[in-house]
């Protein structure tokens, strides 16, 4: 499998192969790239960022604290869409723990007001 690493702006072109049940990555220039190659081959994940309403007006940007299963991005966005942040929310506040049991929380990253 060929993949462009997204861990940093270098965007190394990875080649991921499987031999005797072991996943091998080449083309990376760092450890994170190797980990990304393995992850992308076995279980691709992505961090989700989005927006929620704020009580009383305005919007707050949010993110998942960990990358989640790439196939579940829209399910997670659906759950995020149901949230409303309190007016006094601060950056780092958790709005939803363990979204859909995927192991990541949804936290506030910015407030528009």
């Amino acid at each position: 499998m060929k993949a462009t690493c997204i861990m940093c702006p270098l965007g190394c072109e990875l080649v991921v192969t499987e031999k005797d049940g072991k996943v091998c990555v080449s083309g990376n220039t760092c450890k994170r790239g190797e980990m990304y190659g393995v992850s992308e081959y076995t279980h691709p994940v992505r961090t989700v960022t989005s927006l929620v309403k704020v009580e009383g007006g305005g919007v707050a940007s949010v993110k998942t604290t960990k990358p989640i299963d790439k196939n579940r991005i829209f399910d997670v966005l659906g759950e995020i869409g149901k949230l409303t942040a309190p007016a006094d929310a601060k950056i780092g506040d958790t709005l939803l723990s363990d979204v859909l049991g995927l192991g990541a929380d949804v936290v506030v990253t910015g407030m528009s007001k």
Partner: protein
Amino acid sequence: MRRYDVAVIGGGPAGMAAALSAEENGAKVVLLERDVRLGGILNQCIHQGFGLHYFKEEMTGPEYADRFRKRVENSSIDVLLECMVLSIGKGLTLTALSPTEGLVEIKAGAIVLAMGCRERTAGAIMLPGTRPAGVYTAGMAQKLCNLEGYLVGREIVILGSGDIGLIMARRMTSEGAKVKLVLELAPYSSGLKRNIVQCLDDYGIPLKYSHTVTRLVGSPRLTGLYYAPVGKDKKPILEKEEYISCDALLLSVGLIPENDLLSGMGVEMSPVTSGAVVDENRMTSIAGLFSCGNVLHVHDLVDNVTVEAELAGKSAAEYAAGRLRPGKAVKVRASGGVRYALPQTIYAGDGATTVYFRVSDVFRNATLQAICGGETIFSKKFSVLAPGEMGSVRIDKSLIKGDDLEVTLK
């Protein structure tokens, strides 16, 4: 007339880092920002990808901005919000206007320009066809979405595959719009490769290189557009025009450093970067006037903006205190596949300095060299070099024997 050692114009990542660095180096600093809060463009960049180099931790734009905003709030920097600088005058004075302070006149020991960029607009690219509602720059669509909660359309076409266009392709898709097509005039994207993957490939959004929009259709609102492939001369091949329906067109067709304040001042500008020509200290051709961040040259990574701004802020503080003493000037020139190298002047002396550059095309297995007085003092092979990814070389100044440094690609 308010007096400060250093006045910083612009409170985004460059301005905040410059102000903090100037203060750390002993200056009394004022930071002027036209918006209601600090943070600049980062406030609307709610995606991940910031801080990996500077904080060794990946975070979103607002989080990166918040780290600096908190440091500024805990410092002795005077921050003037909703304050628009109208002009820079002789003797490093500036005039600004604010609804709370009224007309503000400042005399500074040094001024740091950190105004960032604006986007190239629909008017600037002269799209044929109607003038309907529904045409936005990608950054405006981002602002309306991420700071106001508006979706500017449901069926989107994006012109330009630079980072803003790519990021908005993903953003609009996340909020329920259908991004039907991304068109790119060049045969390659000017954005980061990882954005092609995580913004287009992940969502199956098609990208057509060497294509452009040829005509807008619809009035009073956009209902569709015509697009066509372009030849090597970048002119559309109209016989191959195709139609696609859409209710919004997002333009990601270029960032322009916001140097309007400098008109008439006689500051030496670079036609390649559209920013000021600067030396190693990020000082422009006007003594005491410094420039950093996107207003100097368009960056890809905010981490580099921060490093550059810290350098400019420190230099400004030292200049204001009469401590800035550059050595012998060495002119830096770009040649071959290198489109520009910055700073355009470095100084002989000890230690090392970093020269940033961009290439003019996609190059594979090319060698970047720095040549001084006929001698190659730096050489590095790159497997890929792309225009959309700024590079840097660390120059050992002790190896500089002449007054000319050529940065070239072989």
